[in-house]
């Protein structure tokens, strides 16, 4: 069990080695980068076995005392329970597959440019930070990982820094997520001030004793945590950064912006579920945020032209489902969907990456078309991933996880949220198959070369298998960590609802086929001009949030900054030396060097003095 720390040490050692010797040969860099995460995955597997064999009790490994000031006592401790072990499995398992794929991808993406070591250094560092996030036994250590993943995300989004747009996308991502982070930080201050500890288990244990159900403070604390989660997980109102984050290399999008980091918010809320249960109104709000985000993101995804942006918006939408699940108290279903989503979304991203490389860095889906023949492997994997995303009934993993969420929403009496989810499922089905039909069907518009080699095939196929119903068979040891959220069994009613959502999904598929298979006359005409065009543009810009924030925050800030080119407070303070300077020039004009003038003044002065003395 004490092997646990090795999951951190391997990637950390990799990151240090890669960053200290950035000019190492590319092959060495790839080996270290992927190998270190592979070792971490291996260790995770061993730890899982031991942990299970020991009965699955929480395990704490204290590495050192981090901060100790008076009562403020924070250890650098790792906490292993069913939730963190699930997250660890996703991070190191899916992470390793993505690293493995990246070893193929980056060779083709860099095309001989330097930077392989830098890429894997950031990626390994990300794995370390993400593991700390899920393993930290206190909120400060969680925050360390939280900021660490944000930094790595920033660095990887801006990995191709020579294109200014990429760098600014990274900037935007960091700033927006940081806003959420600050709320989380304030939440930490509040929790420490109230409880005198940041240890998560202690907090969860003491919260019901200190706080009343629905009290003001607990609501404030929950809102702060929620805002933190929204920033990291790209939920309303801090969702705008994720689509731009697609500027990073595709494995980055798969690892950070689909499988792991963006789900950190879900993890956070699940981890601190005790606080949300004390604040039912805020928990409801979590669900509403998720519901709205999943609709907004879904609508935005229907009008994208960049293959990665389609998937990015679908990610936002799926995380919306997880938030919805958290909101309705379906804690375990949320984590289940998190894991399944990690499988099929990284599959989709990696396949998209494979397609992009095959098409020589083309990302516009309307310039691809008809790739079914030249890229059969990618086609079938994309279909599997897409089907899981759309939750096609019975055969896909996504069906089981998403259905659990929708069912528990209904069963817990959240009819409106269920409706949101159902409409979302319909939209999901449309945009997913729209993408597949446009890219792989129709006439071929581009020359494509299929990817080759084990690093290319193996991760894709493994993820493909996990995205089918096989993935849904993986159990999660969450009992005892999270409330099950399960309701009394109404098998028949559940089946009715499953049928409803299946029908909705299939109708969505049909609509997508009608609109985007064949010549696409209907949709082309509808969006050519007038209101159709405007709607398309509105959806394409993700309902104009970027525009709103630009006008509401960015421009005012720039305006203020422009007003501060010169230090005006200093200018005010400079009045004092200014007065001295005026006095100086006045007096020095008198001191003109003419002795006769001095004598005159002296005499006049004496005369005045005498006069004052005599007559005064």
């Amino acid at each position, binding site marked *: 069990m004490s092997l646990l720390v090795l999951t951190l040490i391997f990637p950390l050692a990799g990151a240090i080695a890669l960053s200290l010797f950035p000019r190492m040969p590319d092959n060495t860099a790839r080996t270290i980068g992927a190998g270190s995460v592979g070792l971490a995955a291996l260790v995770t597997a061993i730890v899982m076995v031991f942990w299970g064999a020991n009965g699955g009790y929480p395990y704490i490994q204290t590495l050192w005392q981090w901060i100790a000031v008076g009562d403020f006592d924070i250890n650098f401790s790792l906490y292993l329970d069913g939730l963190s072990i699930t997250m660890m499995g996703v991070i190191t398992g899916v992470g390793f597959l993505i690293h493995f794929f990246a070893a193929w991808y980056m060779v083709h993406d860099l095309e001989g440019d330097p930077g392989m070591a830098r890429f894997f250094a950031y990626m390994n560092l990300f794995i370390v930070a993400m593991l700390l996030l899920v393993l930290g036994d206190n909120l400060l250590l969680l925050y360390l990982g939280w900021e*660490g993943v944000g930094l790595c995300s920033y660095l990887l989004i801006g990995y191709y820094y*020579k294109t200014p747009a990429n760098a600014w996308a990274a900037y935007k991502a960091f700033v927006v997520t940081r*806003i959420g982070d600050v709320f989380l930080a304030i939440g930490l201050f509040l929790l420490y001030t109230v409880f005198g500890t940041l240890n998560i288990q202690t907090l969860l244990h003491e919260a019901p004793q200190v706080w009343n159900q629905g009290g003001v403070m607990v609501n404030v604390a929950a809102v702060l945590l929620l805002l933190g989660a929204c920033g990291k997980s790209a939920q309303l109102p801090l969702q705008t950064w994720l689509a731009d984050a697609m500027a990073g290399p595709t494995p980055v999008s798969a690892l950070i912006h689909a499988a792991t980091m963006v789900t950190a918010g879900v993890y956070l809320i699940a981890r601190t579920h005790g606080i949300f249960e004390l604040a039912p109104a805020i928990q409801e709000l979590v669900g509403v945020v998720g519901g709205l985000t999943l609709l907004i993101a879904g609508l935005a995804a229907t009008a994208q032209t960049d293959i990665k942006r389609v998937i990015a918006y679908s990610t936002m939408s799926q995380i919306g489902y997880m938030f919805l699940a958290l909101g309705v108290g379906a804690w375990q279903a949320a984590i289940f969907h998190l894991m399944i989503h990690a499988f099929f979304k990284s599959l989709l991203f990696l396949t998209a990456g494979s397609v992009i490389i095959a098409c020589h860095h083309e990302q516009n889906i309307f310039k691809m078309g008809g790739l079914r023949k030249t890229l059969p492997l990618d086609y079938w994997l994309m279909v599997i991933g897409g089907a899981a995303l759309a939750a096609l009934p019975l055969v896909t993993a996504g069906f089981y996880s998403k259905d659990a969420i929708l069912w528990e929403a209904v069963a817990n009496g959240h009819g409106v949220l269920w409706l949101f989810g159902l409409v979302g499922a319909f939209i999901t089905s449309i945009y997913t198959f729209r993408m597949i039909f446009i890219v792989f069907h129709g006439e071929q518009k581009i020359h494509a070369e299929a990817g080759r080699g084990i690093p290319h095939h193996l991760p894709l196929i493994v993820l493909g298998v996990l995205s089918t119903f096989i993935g849904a068979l993986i159990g999660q040891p969450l009992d005892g960590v999270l409330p099950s959220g399960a309701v009394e069994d109404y098998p028949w009613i559940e089946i009715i609802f499953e049928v409803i959502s299946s029908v909705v999904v299939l109708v969505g598929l049909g609509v997508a086929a009608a609109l985007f298979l064949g010549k696409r006359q209907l949709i082309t005409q509808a969006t050519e001009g007038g209101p159709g065009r405007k709607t398309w543009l509105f959806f394409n810009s993700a309902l104009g949030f970027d525009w709103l924030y630009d006008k509401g925050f960015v421009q005012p800030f720039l305006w203020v900054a422009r007003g501060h080119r010169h230090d005006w407070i200093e200018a005010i303070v400079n009045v004092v030396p200014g007065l001295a300077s005026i006095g100086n020039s006045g007096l020095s004009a008198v001191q003109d060097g003419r002795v006769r003038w001095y004598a005159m003044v002296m005499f006049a002065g004496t005369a005045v003095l005498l006069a004052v003395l005599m007559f005064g």
Partner: protein
Amino acid sequence: MLLCWLLFIPFIGGAACWLAGRDNPEGAVPRWIAFATMALVFIPALWLWAAGDFSLTGLGGGAPHWQREISAPWIPAFGIDFHLAIDGLSVIMVLLASLLGMLAVACSWTQVRERVGAFHMNLLWTLGGVIGIFLAIDLFLYFFFWELMLIPMYFLIALWGHGEFERAAHVRAAVKFFIYTQASGLLMLASILGVVFVHYGQTGTLTFDYNALLNTQLGGAFGMVLMLGFFIAFAVKLPAVPFHGWLADAQANAPSSGAVDLSGILVKTAAYGFLRLALPLFPESSAAFAPVAMALGVISIYYGAVMAFAQTDMKRLISYASISHMGFVLIGLYAGTLLSLQGVIVQVVASAVSTAALFIIAGQLYERLGTRDMRRLGGLFGRLGALPGFALVFVVATLGMPATANFIGEFLIFFGAFGDWPWTVVIASGGMVLAVVYALYLMHRVYWGTPSDEGTIARMSAREYTVMMTLVVVTLLVGLFPQTVLSVSQTTMTEVSQWFAHGLAASTAS
């Protein structure tokens, strides 16, 4: 004896540099002497840090607990002693000063080429004055060193200034620096005399001894006036808005090693002064004044951040960033809890290291490219070897990334202050977003973007690499193992927080 050693070595070394520099105007002899001098200060300080017993045992209110003390009469007629002492707080400060001193010598190795001997003399004498401040616990001696360090600093800025400005601009900046600090020093002298006379009036003994003066009752309006004298003196040096005007000019004009001093050490004397003098001598007035100080802290955070974002000169950006950092320090100081004061110590160390590192990088860039104007830079990431990597580390440290020392500082301050000042902390937290905005802006303007040309620029030399690596190690060490600092300063900060708590109780009672 060791204390005298720490204090006099820089002065003697400085004189030696000057003598060596006369015979060897271009050569390396003065540089080596200067480096060895700082090492001779650093190593004993390190030993003091490692061997000292800073545990809380035997702590029972009242007199401070010194590790070592040395005292000799100086001007007995006025009760002035040559009284040096060291405790956990001073050990950290001396250690920081001597470390940055070594790095300052190392990083001006190729940047200073004229009057090498005299340059190092001024540098070492400045450092000697700074160390004097950290060791002196006779208020007159303290003031003596406070003034002493200004003069060599003035010459460093005026004579060895570098940058894209005329000589006249250097002199102007130097004069501005001098007037600001001199005027504030005058206020401090007046306040010191006030304290001494009040103490004389209360006890009948005329003394400048810190230990004795601590027992002076300094309440009421007069106490507030005296406290303000100290406050303004230290706020100028910190600097806090609105007393910050000298900093950006002085730092933009200082030679890069001089800039290291300014940011890393001179500025830190102010935080030290708050902890050593302003809070312990005037707990009651300080507690009453806390709302104003907090407001100034918040304004400093925001104003510094916005100003930093609006700059085009790299060094000015870093200066304003350090003003923003000092806003956190001000909040921590006047929250006055053990946690926030410990945060102040870490924040001071962290800000010193990260700001110094960014200045060194700016100096190295200037050496290679001949400009610090960010509008003319961009896309340098792949062209400078390891330099941008280091820049990234310290930019990230500046914005308070966990695992760096800055994070520990900021968060301990906030954790400590939140209990009594929740809204202040909430507002000040917004500064953490602005820190990202300005710090990453530096990365974007200088390192990211389209390179203007693909040729590589001279990579880092082994000397430069070592300097930067040292700073990285310090930042991460303090970030991951902050107890290295916290346990040393624990005793002193506990005392200060207890005094402050008494003051708070007294001021709310009255």
